[in-house]
């Protein structure tokens, strides 16, 4: 009797662990996608400037699913490859990509002027919206998303930016649904997450 109970308990444990693993696979790792009332809230209001010099806030993207990621243009490898992946995903989504907004937020507003950021983002896909602002505005938005960034001096007075990678997926209601890991080359995983977001 007790061994049967143990078997059932063991089976249940396996089922729960597999379900948890699946959830993690589907929704990505940190931050926790299940934004319950007592969980830290990601995102929230922001005021930034788009590639056409317009002041934009979260209200301008109301009722639209969002994919938000942070980066900078003076970056030779990871930022272009991230944008290439994003643009490929948007192309694969087809018309569904028009129902969402992709925000590329600079962590280097000193060098990423409005025009530079617009030309850069739109070169990958015209629909990618580059956001910049004052250092305070950028810092506030990064903080709201729990995104670390830091200026690191290099040579000749130059500098590079350390920053948190990863793409936040936000529902129409403004809740965090999960993240994309663009280094995940498993075919279809990121596309499935975006499809689920715009559905």
């Amino acid at each position, binding site marked *: 009797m007790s061994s049967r109970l143990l078997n059932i308990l063991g089976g249940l444990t396996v089922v729960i662990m597999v379900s948890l693993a699946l959830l993690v696979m589907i929704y990505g790792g940190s931050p926790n996608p299940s934004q319950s009332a007592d969980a830290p809230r990601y995102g929230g209001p922001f005021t930034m400037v788009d590639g056409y010099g317009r002041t934009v806030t979260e209200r301008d993207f109301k009722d639209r699913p969002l994919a938000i990621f942070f980066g900078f243009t003076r970056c030779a*490898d990871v930022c272009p490859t991230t944008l290439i992946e994003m643009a490929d995903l948007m192309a694969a989504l087809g018309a569904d990509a028009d129902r969402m907004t992709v925000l590329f937020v600079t962590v280097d507003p000193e060098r990423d002027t409005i025009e530079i950021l617009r030309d850069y983002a739109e070169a990958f896909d015209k629909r990618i919206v580059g956001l910049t602002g004052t250092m305070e505005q950028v810092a506030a938005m990064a903080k709201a998303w729990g995104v670390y960034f830091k200026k690191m001096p290099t040579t000749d007075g130059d500098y590079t930016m350390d920053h948190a990678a990863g793409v936040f997926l936000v529902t129409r209601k403004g809740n965090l649904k999960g993240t994309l890991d663009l280094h995940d080359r498993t*075919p279809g995983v990121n596309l499935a997450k975006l499809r689920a977001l715009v559905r």
Partner: protein
Amino acid sequence: MMEGRIRCFRRRTLAGAGMALIAFSWTVAAAQEYRSGNIVIANPWSRATPPSAQVGGGYLSIVNSGTEGDRLIAVRSPVARRVEVHEMKMDGTIMRMRAVENGLVIPAKTTVNLESGGYHLMFIDLAAGFVKGARIPATLVFEKAGDIDVVLDVLPLGAKPAERGR
């Protein structure tokens, strides 16, 4: 069309290591090689830069067939104010980009790949953006093998590592 590409990618992935190996050999064979002493530079490429970009990346393989290690100590190019060898490292979710200090070590009998997500060349302050189809001259300076002049083929803006040599 995109669907086709995705399916194609999946098929390729499933085809396994054998196919990858064949594809790799083909890529290396088809690409330009540059040699000095025991060092061979294979398949140097870059990708077109967005209109306002001030920097560009560069990728290649360095093959050391000798019994002694060597070091890539400098890179020069007339198209950029400065060229650095960079290494990208993920520290948890934080991405850190650093110039390699004291040269990039190429151990004996070893190939070091400069490819996306690891080491790469960073062309800083471009005289002009990289345009698809252009050929970018650069000189790699090795401690023992000396200078090796190479030319990087500029692939389209959306080119991915798997497409190099195409």
